[in-house]
């Protein structure tokens, strides 16, 4: 620590005295990485920030005009923005929650299997390897009211009493149908993550629990899950950030309909940006999303810190 404190001013001072030192190979070698970082991360971020305060409608050909915070006001008073946020929130809370629960359950079961676990895990991972747009297409077929296998199954099971249900076209159900597609695709990811965590638990701990007379469920609830919590938290955070950007499945399955019951914030932002070319407004919406996701991520990481520190266990 002391070395670091001493070195930093020395470097700065050395560069100030002899600026040509910047041209030394070690510095030069770092330059491409810094340039790339500036070019593809910092510059676009600053550019988008600048766009948030202008009105720039590309369909008109008018130049950008400074409008201050009007784009933010427009977003915050736009019912469609809030509807999209609400839909996204539902998908995040219910969908990712389900993925966490089902993924953890699946991992616990897989952990008990000795033979063929790798094969099973590989098979389970297939959905995650499929492009979301293909998954959307598959589920469009599965949900089809007349020819879809889902309705066929229900018809067979209920002896024909339940048939031809419009999963994607029924307003109260459509969002859940979209959510199940996402859950189908990403639950295995959670399972793999949790399984890796499970396999890292020292066997002594489990043996100690057994010696202490803990039942199977007690071991899971009191020993395994508390240890797994940091892993589950990180997995949930990754999925949460991903689901916040959910676009492909919506695009393929419903196009945001019926009405706007499945319109997510990513889909609405896409419409504003690439269909309407309303650049200022799109940038403002993107920034608002960034703020929300940063706050949520911050809360999650804070929670994870507490868990690791033993406070929440």
């Amino acid at each position, binding site marked *: 620590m002391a070395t670091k404190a001493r070195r930093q001013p020395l470097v700065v001072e050395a560069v100030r005295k002899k600026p040509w030192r910047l041209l030394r190979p070690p510095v030069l070698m770092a330059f491409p990485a810094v340039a790339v970082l500036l070019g593809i991360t910092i510059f676009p971020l600053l550019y988008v920030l600048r766009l948030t305060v202008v*009105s720039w*409608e*590309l*369909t*008109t*050909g*008018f130049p950008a005009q400074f409008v201050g915070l009007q784009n933010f006001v427009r977003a915050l008073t736009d019912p*469609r923005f809030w509807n999209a946020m609400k839909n996204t929130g539902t998908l995040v809370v219910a969908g990712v929650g389900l993925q966490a629960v089902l993924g953890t359950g699946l991992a616990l079961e897989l952990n008990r299997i000795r033979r063929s676990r790798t094969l099973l895990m590989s098979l389970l991972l297939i959905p995650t390897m499929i492009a979301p747009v293909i998954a959307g297409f598959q589920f*469009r077929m599965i*949900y*089809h*009211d*007349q020819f879809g296998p889902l309705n066929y199954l229900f018809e067979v099971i209920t002896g024909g009493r339940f048939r*031809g*249900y*419009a*999963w*994607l*076209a*029924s*307003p109260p159900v459509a969002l859940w149908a979209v959510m199940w597609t996402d859950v189908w695709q990403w639950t295995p990811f959670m399972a793999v993550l949790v399984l890796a965590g499970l396999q890292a638990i020292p066997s002594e701990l489990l043996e100690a629990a057994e010696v202490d007379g803990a039942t199977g469920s007690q071991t899971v609830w009191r020993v395994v899950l508390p240890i797994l919590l940091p892993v589950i938290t990180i997995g949930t955070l990754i999925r949460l950030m991903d689901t916040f950007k959910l676009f492909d499945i919506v*695009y393929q399955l*419903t*196009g*945001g*309909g*019926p*009405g*706007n*019951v499945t319109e997510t914030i990513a889909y609405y932002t896409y*419409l504003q940006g*690439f*269909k*309407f*070319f*309303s650049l200022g407004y799109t940038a403002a919406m993107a920034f608002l999303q960034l703020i929300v996701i940063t706050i949520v991520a911050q809360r999650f990481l804070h929670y994870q810190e507490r868990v690791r520190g033993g406070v929440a266990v």
Partner: protein
Amino acid sequence: MKRRSRTYRVALGVVALGVALAVILAPGWSLAGPAAPKLLNAVKWDYPPKFNNVTVTVVGDAGHNLKPYEFWKDHFAKAGITVKIVEIPFEGVYEKEKTEFVAGTGAFDVVTFYPAFIGDFASNGYLEPLDTLMNKQPASVWNPNQADVLPPFRELYNKWGGKTYALTIDGDVLIMIYRKDLFEDAGEKAAFRAKYNKDLRPPETWDDWLQVGAFFTRKKGQKLAGKVLERDFYGSAEFAKRGFSFAWFVDRWAATGELYFDQNMVPRVNSPAAVNALQNFVDSLKNAPPDVRGYGYDELRDALIKGNVAMVVQWTDVPKKGADPSESQVVGKLGVGRVPGLSIGGRVNHRAMMPVGRVVAVAASSKNKDAAYWVAKHVAYDTSLENVSTFLTGLDSYRASHLAHPEAYTMFKNAAEARVYLDGLKVALADGYPEIFIPGAAQYEDALDLHVNKALAGQETPKQALDAVAQEWNAITQRLGQQKQVELWRQALKSYQALGLVK
């Protein structure tokens, strides 16, 4: 152990290869591209003076509608042109082309786009005016014979501000398609007469549409045309998915003679007549399959050609698909007619929306404008009959000459059947009613589509939905610049007037 594992992997590889080969070589699979349609020589055309091996980049929506550039690649080669095709997914055409135009990349020479965006592209200077190129001599090389193009496409979708910027290659318009075997069935006719005290015939008005639709809607186990149904059957179906559902509303509304806006761009979309039209659309869903709100082009087409519904309003390529036995279960059973209308003052007015469609234009940034124009003209005129009369593409007729050659449409059983199809088409094309095609079209249409869809989903009443559209349209106009939008709309109005769509 190691050797066993390797043997296992080799065996697995062999099996995978076998499966892949079996799939590729299976009947119906081919690595070769589709054959070109036979050259019909219905049009006299000549090659241009040979270009110096120039490359022309053509961009358009991916799939069968770009096939003509493959069909006629020998022609392009003879003209000294290599055509490079850039395919973009259907929904992404506008955004991709607009992005390239704004960035000024000059990536494309020939752009295929949906004519609703002609106002945007032409008024922003992205397209080359074609009038000079069209008038070059000799006419057999350069003249695309625009007089042959049916007026709605020529006047509304090719021109902007009095100049020609694009050539039509796909004449999309909606048409009514119905199961003529059901309408001709003696038992059904008698049942209809008994129930409604009038003859069963394809609907003439939108009220008839509801009535006939309700009549044909049956449950599994009931009889239809003397046969017991193995699954539910529906009287009608609609394009009720987000995207173009607004067009099925405008079909019902435009026949009133009202336009999207008045002279000063005050929205007229929430008039009482418009509310009634939307109510009719909402009511029609009772006679449609339960997941009709998820129906786009594919689902609506399949509902008809798989024998699930009695009638639909659809694009004009669907009867061609319905005549293809590899896809259709209703071959020879389809009839076509005018999109239903509204009875006003004892006379029925019909309007048929012209959603989507495709036009080709030369990019203003193209470095090979002459070659690019010739490629566009060759597809839009010289070989156009071949391109629209084959089921290898999804392109639809748009020229008077296309309607005069029933023998070219070989997917129909005979020329007489093709004639019936073309006659129906001729009437539908005369009823053609355009999309909003001023700059901002995407925003206006999205707002309309969203609220129409909300009404269909029961989230809003028709009145609430259309009031919301009017409010959003005003906001869009203000955002895009009231004065300029009004000017552009008035310019568009002149085209409407030239076509007699408004007085």
